[in-house]
């Protein structure tokens, strides 16, 4: 049975328990969110002891060699002494420049920083409400175009962080965030390759960033963006995306509604079904999938079976659950 030493206390780690489980069971205020090894908000550093290799999955090399790992997926075989991450490695500070409504339920949060934050559109950050509470949001902005970080935040009825963002966050507020991470972004190099982007809800955020980034980098192949929701109110940036489609001949935008109300200009059906009916054969395509976790999971399988190579399927690293 491994033991975990943290801030002067030692805790027993029972069979099957993660390091995060152990810390939370003893009342330690450990930041966490996804609990599945993807959002990285629980990241800590090991000082002594051998980590299971899998507990460092997805962490960038420079942090990995320093012993950073993910407590939520770490089931240790060895005794560990662990510490909180160094604040300056793991936290950046930014100022809220604006909170702008995009629809009845979604706001765009603009964040600026004195020291430029380097990122690729489609990566994500964790936004901290306080030391122990963070949520992951994808970056909808493009560095050269927008000059600030932009997040799309949907309000969830019981979401601690989203309620705080919608109700309390004001321009000028200082906030803390984690450095951008994740590998769901556009890579130049195959400018003729067709790109298929499918998203639901605020899964549009990374796709909006990726599509504009690809266009700005001179992507010439088709870029097809499907944004799905049940109700018309769930779709946003509709006019902006229609303008983009007029501006670029290779960019097409399909707003999809799966509910019964489908006004003119919208497609009836689910985004995934519509995308696959338009492009049933996906070998050679690059695919980006973001939004509802069940949709993303199903879509990964269906686009793979439709011929997309596993290496060409990118998806949000985290889930957009009630937050």
């Amino acid at each position: 049975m491994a033991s975990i030493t943290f801030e002067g206390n030692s805790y027993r780690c029972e069979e099957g328990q993660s390091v995060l489980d152990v810390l939370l069971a003893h009342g330690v205020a450990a930041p966490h969110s996804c609990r599945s090894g993807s959002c990285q908000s629980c990241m800590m550093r090991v000082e002594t002891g051998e980590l299971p290799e899998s507990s460092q999955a997805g962490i960038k090399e420079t942090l990995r060699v320093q012993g950073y790992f993910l407590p939520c997926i770490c089931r240790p075989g060895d005794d560990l002494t662990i510490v909180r991450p160094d604040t300056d490695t793991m936290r950046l500070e930014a100022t809220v420049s604006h909170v702008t409504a995009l629809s009845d339920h979604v706001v765009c949060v603009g964040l600026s920083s004195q020291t430029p934050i380097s990122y690729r559109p489609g990566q994500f950050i964790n936004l901290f409400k306080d030391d122990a509470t963070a949520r992951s949001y994808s970056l909808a902005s493009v560095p050269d175009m927008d000059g600030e970080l932009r997040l799309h935040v949907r309000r969830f009825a019981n979401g601690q962080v989203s309620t705080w963002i919608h109700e309390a966050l004001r321009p000028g507020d200082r906030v803390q965030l984690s450095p951008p991470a994740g590998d769901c972004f556009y890579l130049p190099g195959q400018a003729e390759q067709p790109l298929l982007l499918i998203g639901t809800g605020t899964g549009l955020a990374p796709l909006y960033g990726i599509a504009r980034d690809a266009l700005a980098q001179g992507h010439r192949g088709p870029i097809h963006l499907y944004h799905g929701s049940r109700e018309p109110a769930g779709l946003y940036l509709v006019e902006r995306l229609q303008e983009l489609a007029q501006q670029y001949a290779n960019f097409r935008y399909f707003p999809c509604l799966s509910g019964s109300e489908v006004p003119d200009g919208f497609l009836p059906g689910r985004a995934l079904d519509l995308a696959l009916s338009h492009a049933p054969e996906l070998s050679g395509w690059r695919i980006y999938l973001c939004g509802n976790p069940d949709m993303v999971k199903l879509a990964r399988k269906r686009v793979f079976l439709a011929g997309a190579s596993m290496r060409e399927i990118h998806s949000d690293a985290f889930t957009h659950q009630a937050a």
Partner: protein
Amino acid sequence: MSKNLFEQIGGEPAVNVAVDIFYRKVLSDDRISHFFDDVDMERQAAKQKAFLTMALGGPNKYSGADMRRGHAHLVARGLNDSHFDAVMENLAATLQELNVPPALIAQAAAICEGTRNDVLGK
């Protein structure tokens, strides 16, 4: 002895090509797809690659005990000889699609056959 099976087939690059084809066949095969459905696809693809590398005689670190432990939860869900046979069929079909000579396919099948009892927990 000259080149081994893994080298003759083309080593790791060949396996990378084979993984997509093989995994697509397995997921589309109603006899066995349910065993592969409820897992993370990336992780699953990594496992398929490890499997193909082993089947093709490449470097692998799996012992018989690993095979037993790794499949015990599937045996508990009813994994049996018919499913093992289905995987073997998909493997052969994948290699045929890649124009691997029949003699090499037979070698790969023999390597897999050697793991049957461990995989099925017999």
